[in-house]
C-alpha cells in the first residue's frame, strides 16, 4: 500500500484525466460471455468516470458528494489502488487506510479478538504493532467482554465499532471514509468524528464521502461534486454543497422509492403543507387531464417566521421516474418573508405535455440554503392523464405530420 514517487510538491493524491470503464452486466458465466461475442463491440461498456482531474494536498480534508451511482466509490477504489484506471494517471503518496467498508475480511466464525488480528494485518499492521495497540483498540470500540464472542453474534453497530476502531489505529497518512458511520449510535458517531478531527489536527489527509451534507460540512473544507462520472464542481464546502442542492430534487427521489407511502412527511415541521390539489384552468378540482392546462396548488401554513423559503414540487411517473421538478429557487423567484401563522397558496400552471399514466406530486418547502426542509410530503397527491392516443413515452404533445 506504500506507493512512493518523487513528488516534489505536497500533493497527496493527484488524478490526471482519469477515466474508468466498466462492462455493464458482469459476465460470470461462460454462456453469457459467448453471447457477448456476437454483440457489437463496445456495447455494454459503461463509463463510471470520465476525464476526472484533481489534486488533493497533504493534510487537506476533502469531501466527495453526488447522487447514488455518480462514481464516488469508484474514485475511492481508484485511490486505494483496488481498481486500475482505464485512462489517465493517478499518483498517491502515503499509507492509505481504506475505510470503504468496515471490517472487510472479518470472519463471522472468529471472535472479535481473532478478527482484530486478521483485520489489522489486512489494513497493514504487523502482528507486533497489533499486540501493542490491542488494548487501545478494544477500549475505543467499547466492546468489553464481547471481544471473545464470535462476531456472527454481533449487532451491526458492534460490528461497525470494531471495524472502525481497528481502522483508526492503523496510523494512516491518508484516511478514506465511504459512508460508513451511519450505523453507529449517536455516542459512537460523535466519538468517530472526534477521532477524525484528531487525525485532521495531526495532518492526515482525509477523503470523506457522505450523503449527509452536515457531516461533509463538519469534516471537509474542500468538496468535489461528481455528477454522472464527471467532476462538475470543486471548491469550498459552502459553494459546492449549494451547487449540489440545485439538483437535490432528483436526488431525494432516490432516497424514497415507491408510490405507496402516500403520506410521507419530512422536514422539521416549521411549516405545514395542507391541501395539495390539481385543478383545471378555471380552478375547479380535477384529477383526470387530456390536453388541457394543469394547475397544481398547495396551501402552506408557517408555524414559525420564515425568510425567503423555497417552494417546490417534484412530479413522478408511476414507475418513479421524475417527470418534472420545479421550484422558486430554480426560477429565480424571491419569495419574501412570512410571519408565523401566515397561510399561502402556491400554484403551478402548465400545459399538459405528458403521455397517458398516473403521476404523483411531492411538494416541499425548504430553507433558503436548500439544505433543510420545513416540510416535504412525498407523493401526497395524484392525477392521471388520458389522451386520444398514447406515445408509449413520457411525452405526448401536439405535432404535425406533412406528406408532400
Amino acid at each position, binding site marked *: 500500500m506504500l506507493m512512493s514517487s518523487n513528488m516534489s510538491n505536497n500533493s497527496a493524491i493527484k488524478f490526471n484525466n482519469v477515466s474508468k470503464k466498466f462492462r455493464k452486466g458482469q459476465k460470470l458465466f461462460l454462456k453469457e460471455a459467448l453471447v457477448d461475442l456476437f454483440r457489437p463491440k463496445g456495447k455494454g461498456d459503461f463509463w463510471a468516470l470520465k476525464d476526472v482531474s484533481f489534486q488533493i494536498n497533504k493534510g487537506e480534508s476533502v469531501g466527495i458528494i453526488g447522487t447514488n451511482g455518480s462514481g464516488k466509490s469508484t474514485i475511492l*477504489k481508484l485511490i486505494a489502488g*483496488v481498481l486500475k484506471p482505464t485512462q489517465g494517471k493517478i499518483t498517491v503518496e502515503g499509507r492509505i487506510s481504506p475505510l470503504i*467498508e468496515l471490517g472487510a*475480511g472479518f470472519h463471522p*466464525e472468529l471472535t472479535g479478538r481473532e478478527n482484530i488480528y486478521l483485520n489489522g494485518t489486512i489494513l497493514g499492521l504487523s502482528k507486533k504493532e497489533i499486540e501493542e495497540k490491542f488494548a487501545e483498540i478494544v477500549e475505543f470500540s467499547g466492546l468489553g467482554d464481547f471481544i471473545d464472542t464470535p462476531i456472527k453474534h454481533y449487532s451491526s453497530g458492534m460490528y461497525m465499532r470494531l471495524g472502525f476502531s481497528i481502522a483508526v489505529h492503523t496510523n494512516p497518512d491518508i484516511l478514506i471514509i465511504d459512508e460508513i458511520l451511519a450505523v453507529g449510535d449517536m455516542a459512537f458517531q460523535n466519538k468517530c468524528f472526534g477521532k477524525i478531527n484528531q487525525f485532521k489536527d495531526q495532518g492526515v489527509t482525509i477523503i470523506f464521502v457522505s450523503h449527509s451534507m452536515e457531516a461533509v460540512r463538519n469534516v471537509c473544507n474542500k468538496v468535489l461534486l461528481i455528477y454522472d462520472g464527471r467532476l462538475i464542481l470543486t471548491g469550498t464546502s459552502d459553494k459546492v454543497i449549494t451547487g449540489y442542492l440545485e439538483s437535490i430534487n432528483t436526488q431525494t427521489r432516490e432516497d424514497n422509492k415507491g408510490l405507496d407511502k402516500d403520506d410521507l412527511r419530512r422536514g422539521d415541521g416549521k411549516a405545514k403543507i395542507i391541501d395539495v390539489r390539481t385543478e383545471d384552468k378555471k380552478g375547479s378540482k380535477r384529477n383526470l387531464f387530456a390536453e388541457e392546462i394543469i394547475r397544481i396548488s398547495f396551501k402552506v401554513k408557517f408555524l414559525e417566521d420564515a425568510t425567503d423559503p423555497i417552494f417546490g414540487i417534484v412530479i413522478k411517473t408511476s414507475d418513479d421516474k421524475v417527470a418534472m421538478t420545479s421550484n422558486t429557487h430554480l426560477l429565480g423567484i424571491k419569495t419574501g418573508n412570512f410571519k408565523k401563522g401566515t397561510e399561502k397558496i402556491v400554484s403551478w400552471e402548465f400545459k399538459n405535455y405528458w403521455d397517458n399514466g398516473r403521476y404523483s406530486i411531492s411538494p416541499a418547502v425548504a430553507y433558503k440554503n436548500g439544505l433543510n426542509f420545513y416540510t416535504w410530503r412525498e407523493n401526497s397527491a395524484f392525477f392521471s392523464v388520458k389522451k386520444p392516443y398514447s406515445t408509449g413515452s413520457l411525452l405526448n404533445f401536439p405535432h404535425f405530420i406533412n406528406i408532400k
Partner: protein
Amino acid sequence: MVSRYRDLFIQLTLREIKAKYKQSLLGYAWVIIVPLVNLLVLSIVFSYFFKVSTDSIPYPIYLFVALVPWTFTANAITSATGSISANNSLITKVFLPREIFPLSAIAAKLVDLILTALILIIFLILFKVTFFPTLLFVPLIFLVQLMFTIGISFFFSATNAFFRDIENVLGVFLTLWLYLTPIIYSPQMIPPNLRFFLNFNPMAGIVNSYRDVILYGVLPSFEVFIPTVFISLLFLVAGYWYFKKRSWYFADVI
C-alpha cells in the same frame, strides 16, 4: 513490506484453518475420515473385484502412498479456485497482492496433508514396509508437487474470477484427472504405446516418484522426473504471469 505481507499471509491461513475447525462438530476429524473411507472403498473395489496387481506391495499401501499427495493437490486446487470469489469483499476494498489468497488457501491445506501423512506413516508401519534411505527425497518431490499445485491453482483461481463455470466443472475435471493418473492402478497397466502421454501429466510423474522412493527404495527415473520438474516449473511461472495480468481486473468483475 515483505514482513507485512508475511504476517497477512499467516493470518489469512490461520483464518482458513480456524474457521474450518470451528464450523463443524468433528472439525479436523473429517480430514482423516474422508481419505480413510476413500481408501477403504477403493481398496475393496480395485484389489478385490478388479484385482489390480501391485507385485509384492499390499494394494492399500500402494494406493495410499499416491492417494495422500493426490488428495492434497486436488483439495488445494479446489480451495484456491474459489479463493478470489470468496474474498471479494477484501479484493474490492483493500489493495493487497492478490496472489496471497490462493496461496493461503493452499497453505491451509498443508494441515490436512500433515494429518493424512501421519496416517500413512502408521499404515506403513502396520504393513511392515521397509523404510528406505531414499525417503530423504520425499521433500524434493513434494517441492515439485507444490510448484505444480500452485501454478495450476493460479490459472484456475484467476479464470474463476471471470467465469464461475470453473468452480462448477472442477469436480468433474478432478475425477477424470484422478482416473487418468496411475493412482488406483499402476503405470504398468497402461498399454506401452500410450504410456508416453503420462509425460504430460505431472501428477503421474509425481505419484510414481513417491512410490519409487517410499515403497521400492529406488530413485525416480530421470526420464520421468526431469520432464515432471520442467512442466511443473513451467506451470508455476506461466500461472503466476497469467494470474498477475488478470488480477488487475478482479475488482472490476467480482
